[in-house]
């Protein structure tokens, strides 16, 4: 604070804090903000804020303990604390020419457990976010069927429903990292990923209602958005575990996730889980739509491309520490992360502190569900030594998450999608964490 000695500054700040304690929370904040501006503390707001906050720390009785709080329905739909303002989706603006056909990422470094809150699940739009009135929305199922049917949203909710916790991942997750560690933080290297409880009616139940003819082998799923998003889905998947979803984590599906209904193909490319679903056409062959030819195909070094590469293979990443969650001083820390596989349950996760020379199993914790995020945890006493932190997951099919070297040896550097390589965080001796790749 210019023009004040440190002692004088502390005295002044304490006086301000004391004076303000007679005010309500909102007024108090406003009073302090103005007072700080008046004494010219703008540039040193952090130490000032810390000094003020200390009046709420023991042995002082905090201001919120000596007054009443807000009543019920202050927020009819509850929101996170104002102190969580940086827990938000973020994008990388140079990835796409505009934000209408673009993607935002989940703040994985801020999340605990396996459920992604509805407001934080990554977004992917090909033609922007539509605002659909459910009363004016329909699902049509037709093509090679005995009884082409049209459903209102209310009618769909009369069918027997299922609720399942499944991860959802854009196949381009980490796609910027094929050639080099290009992103600064976890949110951008792995954030095209979410995991929710999805409620809806099994697609197989709806297919029973229309009666699929024997020659029906593929289903075209189509969205009602401005891109008319479409993907061809094999009948085996539809009959296995696909769901037409109308609720997410207990409440109506969010607009960003396809309100009022979307398709959910557990463990498969997020792109196949058509949002704002309006139509399912049964046919004998795939349609070769734009999003399964020009895009969402994997270009290989020989110039040919894999098509219908649906499955999101086994993957994992350490979420703490990470560039956004550095070590702050020596001592015990929980090295924590998430693992997932589109082929089933996670069997185990190994972690390495030395860039993959030595590995040790990291215990799994919480629920272990097929095609769902699974938490792993490893307690570690950090003494300030540099680390090359890695996690390596394996799933119930026996598949072990590959190294970048192995992945590049098979696919080169231009396949964009399905990057599931073992990820490396370089932990510096000052505790900061940096995205890294090893060769």
């Amino acid at each position, binding site marked *: 604070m210019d023009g004040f000695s440190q002692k004088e500054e502390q005295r002044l700040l304490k006086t301000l804090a004391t004076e303000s304690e007679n005010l309500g929370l909102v007024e108090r904040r406003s009073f302090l903000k103005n007072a700080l501006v008046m004494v010219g503390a703008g540039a040193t707001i952090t130490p000032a804020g810390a000094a003020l906050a200390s009046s709420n720390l023991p042995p002082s009785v905090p201001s919120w303990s000596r007054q009443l709080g807000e009543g019920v329905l202050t927020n009819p739909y509850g929101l996170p604390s104002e102190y969580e303002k940086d827990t938000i989706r973020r994008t990388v603006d140079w990835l796409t020419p505009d*934000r209408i056909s673009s993607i935002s990422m989940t703040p994985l470094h801020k999340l605990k457990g396996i459920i992604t809150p509805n407001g934080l699940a990554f977004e992917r739009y090909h033609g922007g976010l539509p605002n659909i009135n459910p009363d004016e929305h329909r699902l*049509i199922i037709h093509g090679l069927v005995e009884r082409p049917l049209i459903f209102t949203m209310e009618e769909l909710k009369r069918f027997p429903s299922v609720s399942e916790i499944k991860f959802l991942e854009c196949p381009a997750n980490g796609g910027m990292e094929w050639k080099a560690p290009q992103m600064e933080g976890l949110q951008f290297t792995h954030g095209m990923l979410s995991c929710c409880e999805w409620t809806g009616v099994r697609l197989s139940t709806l297919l029973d209602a229309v009666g699929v003819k024997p020659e029906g082998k593929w289903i075209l799923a189509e969205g009602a958005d401005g891109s008319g998003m479409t993907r061809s889905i094999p009948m085996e998947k539809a009959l296995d575990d696909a769901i037409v979803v109308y609720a997410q984590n207990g409440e109506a599906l969010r607009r960003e996730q396809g309100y009022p209904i979307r398709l959910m193909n557990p463990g498969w490319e997020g792109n196949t889980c058509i949002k704002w679903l309006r139509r399912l056409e049964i046919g004998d062959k795939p349609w*070769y739509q734009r999003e399964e*030819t*020009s895009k969402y195909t994997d270009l290989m070094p020989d110039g040919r*491309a894999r098509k219908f590469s649906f499955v999101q293979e086994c993957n994992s990443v350490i979420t703490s520490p990470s560039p956004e969650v550095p070590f702050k001083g020596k001592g015990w820390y929980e090295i924590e992360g998430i693992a997932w596989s589109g082929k089933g349950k996670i069997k185990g996760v*190994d972690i390495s502190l030395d860039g993959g*020379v030595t590995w040790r199993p990291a215990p799994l914790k919480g629920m272990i569900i097929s095609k769902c995020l699974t938490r792993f945890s490893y307690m570690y006493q950090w003494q300030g030594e540099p680390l090359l932190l890695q996690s390596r997951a394996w799933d119930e099919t026996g598949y072990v998450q590959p190294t970048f070297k192995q992945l590049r040896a098979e696919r080169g550097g231009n396949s964009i999608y399905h990057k599931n390589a073992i990820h490396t965080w*370089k932990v510096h001796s000052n505790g900061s964490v940096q995205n890294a790749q090893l060769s």
Partner: protein
Amino acid sequence: MHNSLNVNALINGRLLSMRTFKITIVCFAGFLVGCQQSDQSIETPKETVTKVADGATSQTDLPKNFSIGHQATSDVIAGWDIDVRPDGLGLPEGSGSVEDGESIYEDKCAMCHGSFGEGEDQWPKLTGGAGSLTEARPEKSIGSFWPYASTLWDYINRAMPFPAPQSLEPDEVYAITAYVLNMNEIVDDDFVLTRENFASIEMPNKDGFYIDDRPDTKNTRCMKNCKDGSKINIVLGPVYSLGKKADTVAEEKTDENDLAKTTYESVCQVCHASGVANAPKMGVAEDWTARLERGKDSIYSNALNGLNGMPAKGGRADLSDDTVKAAVDFMLSKL
């Protein structure tokens, strides 16, 4: 009643007599199991229970078809059934020439894709890249990569032009498709594309795809001495291969002009950031001088009603006039 719910208020919203209060307490205790109130002052509606129909209650023997939903008639389906397959299934009657396609393309497509399909800014390239698929920087254009012409027809019809999806007539889609194929040297200058000759078109990269054959990697769970630790080469990120720094922090939404700014970013920016289709560029004063001389109302009017390449309200008819005007103000405030 200190520090707990006021039962009287909860039940009736007013204080009751002591006698009623006692009944109410009993009533509250039975709240969830169905309260029978004996006080004559409160009428209890009498319900008659009709006998539940037998059958269909066995949870282990449910019908395969619940008979929910209505028949989708062919008329209803036709309005939404827009997909087209490589064998031509789904194509409507119609035709379009390369020549017609060129003028429609210039009008509706070139603003983003470039006059030669080269792509403006980051918008998709439509042409070029032949033989580049094995190179370090492959160009996956329609000519170099797309396996089927039907995909082109289908996608233009369902999603283009970007600001006005599903706005083209079938003949326009045939014509644009013909022209884009011509740009890629797949059909001649005098070609006329029809439903009948569609299946005869062969794309250069039609054999360039194969069914997913993963898993392709075979890592194992090595636990000790898995590599030589002294030979680890570390590449630290971020490495900005595109020469740009990631805009990693979403802008705080503290701008008073929040709605206007959001509208600009989600609707106007598509054209006004780069100046495609002669759109006046954001922040470039000289682009706006002549327009401002005609007055702000004239600019509002163009934004609301459309002009040349500018669709009415930027193609978002659902926006209120005030929102569109606010977005205009926001853009003008940045000059």
